[in-house]
């Protein structure tokens, strides 16, 4: 071999050179910086401008956070402490307002000795939500999820345990009636029968049952009125109730809009378009102001309940449209396939159509939920003390008049934690469902 080149080339390398380090400009951080930040004149310009802007922002924000005062009784004390520590006029956040009032921003005016109740309710909620969110957990746990709303209601509002129990009884009776009736008549009629039983139970049985049982076996927690609810707890209750209630309602509306039955179709369309066509704030004003005039005087129809209903209806209309998008995205073959298997309408929806349609709709649904959750801050305009409303009330005290951004930073952080975890969950869910496709 070595003779092959003897006449044609003077020199032939016959052994491999040892590997050398790549040139400095082609490795590691230098290469990354050159390729990603300084690859061309436009990129260089953008990098420099962005760096200046970010630096300028950090220059203002970092000292503000770094010098923050956490322990003081009022804004003026905050300023004294700052003047002593960092010199007068230094940029400094006064987070002492959070130390002093965090419990109001979180719980509103809920009695301080009873804070364990909303906290327990939150734990119950998380336990109840986990089997719904994570299908790997045992399915029996769903029974706990089903009764958890009643536990949470009792923990939050207190009063006699028999009130939520009698409501639960109505639902159980309705279900039993539905099961019995569905043996003899069509599912729609059976459902109507169930609803009728529930209404009868609540109308006739619940009142006397609650009073009698409370007398025989008085298990009760101290009652806390809705007007003591406030802060992040209020946003959370409104948001979560509306999210849980609006999903089934939205799915039904979406199915209604696709339905061939003239009446159901038109009612669904009218409802969705009416609710979507008007801003949420108008519905909230309707709930708080207009309804007062139409209800008989003296009716004590809880404002918070009215708001939950309005927010639920509002987001149900949006969910309906998102789910409709999912339904429309399914190929017609899926519907026909379901029919050809001999499934009836509800079976085909439950087993074939909805699982696929909802899978497609997940990003849209979660997006609606995140929007809804943040929209709960609009209740400040009807005088409910959500975190924003409380921040105004806190600023009105002479101690904290003049504090501004600190409160918003705290409120923003609380909302960010919730919304961000919702969006992460949705991404995880999408990935998991995607895998099933392969």
């Amino acid at each position, binding site marked *: 071999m070595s003779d092959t080149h003897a006449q044609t080339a003077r020199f032939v390398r016959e052994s491999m050179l040892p590997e050398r380090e790549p040139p400095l400009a082609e490795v590691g951080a230098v290469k990354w910086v050159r390729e990603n930040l300084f690859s061309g004149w436009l990129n260089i310009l953008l990098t420099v401008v962005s760096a200046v802007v970010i630096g300028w922002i950090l220059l203002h924000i970092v000292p503000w956070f770094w010098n923050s005062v956490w322990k003081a009784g009022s804004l003026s004390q905050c300023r004294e402490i700052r003047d002593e520590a960092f010199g007068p*006029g230094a940029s400094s956040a006064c987070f002492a307002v959070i130390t*002093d009032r965090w419990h109001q921003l979180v719980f509103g005016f809920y009695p301080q000795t009873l804070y364990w109740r909303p906290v327990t309710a939150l734990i119950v909620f998380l336990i109840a939500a986990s089997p719904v969110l994570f299908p790997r957990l045992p399915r029996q746990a769903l029974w706990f999820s089903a009764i958890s709303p009643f536990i949470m209601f009792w923990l939050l509002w207190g009063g006699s345990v028999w009130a939520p129990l009698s409501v639960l009884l109505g639902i159980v009776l309705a279900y039993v009636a539905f099961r019995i009736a569905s043996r003899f008549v069509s599912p729609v009629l059976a459902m109507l029968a169930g609803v009728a039983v529930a209404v009868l139970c609540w109308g006739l049985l619940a009142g006397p049952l609650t009073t009698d049982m409370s007398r025989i076996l008085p298990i009760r927690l101290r009652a806390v009125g809705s007007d003591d609810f406030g802060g992040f707890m209020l946003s959370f209750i409104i948001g979560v109730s509306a999210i849980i209630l609006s999903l089934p309602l939205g799915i039904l509306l979406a199915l209604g809009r696709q339905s061939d039955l003239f009446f159901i179709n038109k009612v669904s369309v009218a409802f969705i378009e009416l609710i979507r066509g008007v801003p949420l704030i108008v519905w909230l004003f309707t709930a708080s102001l207009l309804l007062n*005039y139409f209800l008989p005087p003296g009716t004590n129809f809880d404002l918070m309940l009215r708001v939950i209903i309005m927010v639920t209806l509002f987001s149900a209309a949006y969910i309906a449209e998102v789910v409709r998008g999912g339904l429309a995205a399914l190929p017609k073959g899926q519907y026909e396939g379901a029919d050809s298997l001999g499934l009836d309408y509800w079976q085909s929806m439950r087993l074939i159509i909805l699982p696929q349609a909802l899978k497609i709709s997940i990003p849209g649904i979660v997006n609606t939920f995140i929007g809804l959750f943040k929209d709960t801050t609009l209740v400040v305009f009807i*005088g409910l003390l959500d975190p924003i*409303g409380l921040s105004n009330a*806190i600023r009105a005290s*002479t101690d904290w008049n*003049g504090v501004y951004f600190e409160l918003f930073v705290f409120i923003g952080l609380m909302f960010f934690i919730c919304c961000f975890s919702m969006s992460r969950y949705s991404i995880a869910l999408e990935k998991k469902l995607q895998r099933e496709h392969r």
Partner: protein
Amino acid sequence: MNKTAFLGALTVTGLAAGAAAAATLDDVRDRGTLNCGVSTGLTGFSAPDANGNWEGFDVAVCRAVAAAVLEDPEAVEFVPTTGQTRFTALASGEIDLLARNTTWTFSRDNDLKFEFVGVNYYDGQGFMVPKELGVTSAKDLGGATVCIQTGTTTELNLADFFRTNNMEYEPVPIETNAEAQQQYLADACDVYTTDASGLAATRASFENPGDHVILPEIISKEPLGPLVRHGDNEWGDIARWTLNALIAAEEYGVTSANIEELSQGTQNPEVNRLLGTEGNLGEMIGLDAEWAKRAIMAGGNYGELFERYLGESTPVGLARGLNAQWTDGGLLYAPPFR
């Protein structure tokens, strides 16, 4: 203006519905609590403290009425109301009394069908400017940018003032007082205008209050008072005379410190009638003899309340000014308790 007409129309409908429930006093007694509408937060007038107890000058009126009617100054459900919801809340019967720094005007009294029971604070709209602008009079404000809260009477007053003085201005509409402070401090506007009490409270919260001046001109009359619905005069009288009792108590020197002693009987028949040791004034408004005594004991007389929530010892630091007794050159003048 459209908003007013709309609210007015609503109120009329509401009254038609609410007329059946006229005896507010009975309702309040049955319920055991007074539903009192207050502001969602206004320095010195109503604000919750760290324990969630409402405090302030307007709040004190609610507590006095509750003390007079229910014998317990704590028996009040405070309903936070916004500028938009306050009148409907009252007209629809959600609240029994509205004590929310509300200006007594002709149209609110007559068109919206409310009954102002008196004035607990005489306010007026003023201007605050940075000292470095060198402005000494509101007449020099031509061409200024003005921070102004929307949806209030101050907005209309401002327009009137600049029109009568033939000046131009550029409004910077803002929603809340806190936002206004930030905008003003960030130089988004040259002038901040609102009620003088609000300006004083705002200035007190600044780092360097001395760098800002409140101009001498007061461009409007803002008599702030509690109000009730039309149609229940007995209830209106109770609220009116509770307020008068607080004012009269200051005039006669009845304070929360000496009230026990004075209610043993004094040489002054007017004090005796006020405190129920003489005459039957309580009976005349459907309450017991000691109603006024309890109202005064709830937080003290008018002067004590003023000192505690608004006066010169507080951060708000307001002088009595127009809100002094008529004997001291102010406007407070309670009709005789006779």
